[in-house]
């Protein structure tokens, strides 16, 4: 019998989204209330998800599955959305279209959650599209800003291309196995082994998911989009929708196409190495912090992709844990950029290049808390203890050693060291260079979002046991 309670988070969010849209039509200028409302809805969804952590059921003719993996990722998505929503209360402060913003934000969250739960390629694809379409619009939300529109355009075109590739790949999988159900594919996947079509399907699916994950060479939209989109949306894209790619890949490759693992393991190993190296190396020479974070995000995707290359329970746990940590670190980092953008604009309304690293000069004096938070985030991103970034790298990198892939571990570790260079530069700008301008206090929504992200990073870093355990539970679904 279907336990609808397990779907409650999605239902609540849908309800909140629709309500937000409706109410938005009727209330006048001040739509701030909608942000609070959305936040409350997300909190409720989060708590409902947390309450059913240990569920393990398939719903609706096997199109949805609620298991540890899905719950884990749902929590990641809801957390990111929550942080972004809270921060957006400030971002959309005087915006007539805040209702659209929050509705789209919630829709994209629902899309990601559906993907997390998807147990059927149709569900997965539709969820994927829901998340994509909503975020296309969100990326262009600053529509008076040519950069924002350009970002949306690039995101959209590469996104559609990827969708098409993915669908093409799915069609082959369907053709060979005769079903779209993930367990069903797993049963019949034997037919794909050794067949060239199987190979093509795998690569096309990798391209489709790799687009979301921003794996090289499917990453090229990401720096442009992250840089051009409104910063809160970049946070959502980098921290949230990127993870959707991973959860989809977990479902499709590890569960459905497990028999093809030699193929996709090799593919992910190659891509992981290229991705992390390119991401880190290019990030060094960036002057826009957002763009730098974008490349760093590319690099981080490379690390997580290692989990597929290693394919041990420990690696999956590491990869899964990494997505959680990365959600907090990256959201936090982007939100800091948003706060700095706010600060720069409050100095000078017509400021250009608000995400330029020069604006971070002396941030420790202008906004001590933000600077501190940013420092924690970048150190976490570079994997310095005792942060979430460290513990996840610890588990993930260690799993490569466990599996005997020392070369992969060495490359990852060297990359990690390279990354320190540009992360440390941010810290240098914030702490060592003289400030231009006086002290500015952070707007409350930003501050709250930063505190939450900071708490996430530090709690996972200092008390990792429950999270590691949880990630391992989630990884068990895959093996």
């Amino acid at each position, binding site marked *: 019998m279907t336990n609808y309670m397990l779907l409650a988070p999605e239902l609540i969010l849908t309800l909140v989204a629709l309500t937000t849209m409706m109410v938005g039509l009727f209330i006048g200028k001040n739509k701030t209330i909608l942000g609070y409302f959305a936040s409350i809805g997300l909190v409720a969804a989060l708590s409902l998800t947390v309450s059913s952590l240990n569920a393990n059921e398939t719903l609706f003719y096997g199109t949805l599955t609620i298991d540890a993996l899905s719950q884990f990722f749902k929590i990641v998505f809801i957390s990111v959305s929550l942080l972004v929503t809270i921060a957006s209360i400030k971002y959309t402060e005087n915006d007539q279209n805040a209702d659209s913003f929050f509705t789209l934000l919630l829709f994209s969250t629902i899309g990601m959650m559906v993907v997390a739960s998807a147990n059927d390629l149709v569900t997965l*694809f539709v969820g994927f599209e829901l998340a994509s379409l909503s975020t*296309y619009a969100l990326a262009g939300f600053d529509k008076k800003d040519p950069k924002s529109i350009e*970002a949306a*355009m690039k995101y959209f075109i590469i996104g559609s*291309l990827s969708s*098409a590739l993915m*669908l093409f790949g799915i069609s082959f999988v*369907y*053709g060979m196995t005769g079903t779209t159900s993930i367990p069903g594919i797993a049963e019949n996947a034997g037919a794909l082994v050794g067949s060239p079509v199987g190979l093509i399907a795998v690569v096309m699916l990798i391209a489709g998911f790799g687009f979301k994950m921003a794996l090289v060479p499917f990453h090229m939209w990401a720096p442009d989009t992250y840089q051009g989109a409104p910063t809160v949306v970049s946070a959502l894209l980098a921290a949230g929708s990127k993870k959707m790619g991973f959860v989809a890949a977990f479902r499709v490759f590890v569960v459905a196409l497990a028999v093809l693992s030699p193929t996709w393991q090799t593919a992910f190993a190659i891509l992981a190495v290229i991705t992390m190296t390119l991401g880190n190396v290019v990030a060094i020479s960036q002057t826009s912090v957002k763009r730098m974070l974008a490349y760093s995000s590319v690099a981080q995707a490379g690390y997580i992709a290692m989990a597929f290359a290693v394919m041990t329970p420990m690696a999956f746990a590491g990869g899964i844990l990494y997505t959680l940590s990365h959600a907090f670190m990256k959201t936090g980092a982007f939100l800091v950029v948003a706060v700095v953008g706010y600060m720069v604009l409050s100095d000078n309304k017509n400021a250009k290049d608000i995400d330029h690293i020069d604006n971070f000069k002396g941030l420790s004096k202008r906004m001590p808390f933000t600077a501190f938070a940013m420092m924690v985030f970048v150190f976490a991103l570079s994997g310095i203890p005792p942060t979430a970034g460290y513990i996840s790298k610890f588990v993930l990198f260690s799993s490569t050693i466990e599996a005997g892939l020392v070369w992969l571990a060495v490359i990852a570790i060297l990359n990690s060291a390279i990354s320190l260079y540009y992360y440390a530069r941010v810290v240098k700008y914030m702490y060592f260079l003289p400030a231009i301008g006086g002290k500015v206090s952070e707007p409350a929504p930003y501050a709250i979002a930063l505190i939450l992200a900071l708490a996430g990073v530090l709690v996972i870093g200092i008390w990792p046991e429950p999270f590691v355990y949880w990630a391992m539970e989630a990884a068990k679904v895959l093996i």
Partner: protein
Amino acid sequence: MIPLTYYLILSSIVFTIGLYGIMSQRNGVRLLMSVELMLNSANINLVAFSSYNDDMSGQVFTLFSIALAAAEAVIGFAILLSIFRMRNMINIDDINILRW
């Protein structure tokens, strides 16, 4: 009976045309059309497989994908419209503020 491979080759051709279009076209609308071509080639596949496997879900999937393609086009056109409004043209390879 027409072999399944024929359908697949057809869809491959359509897909490749779409690919080529998305790589080479400057006009935004043409780009969108190319994307549609690619989605539809996948739909050909799905329907073909559905028939040859005697399994309905492929056709259902096709319906879904058609609807999604429509939704995608909507967003796409909206973005292009916005670009047009801003620049009075939709040659998207001129839009490269964001790079490097």
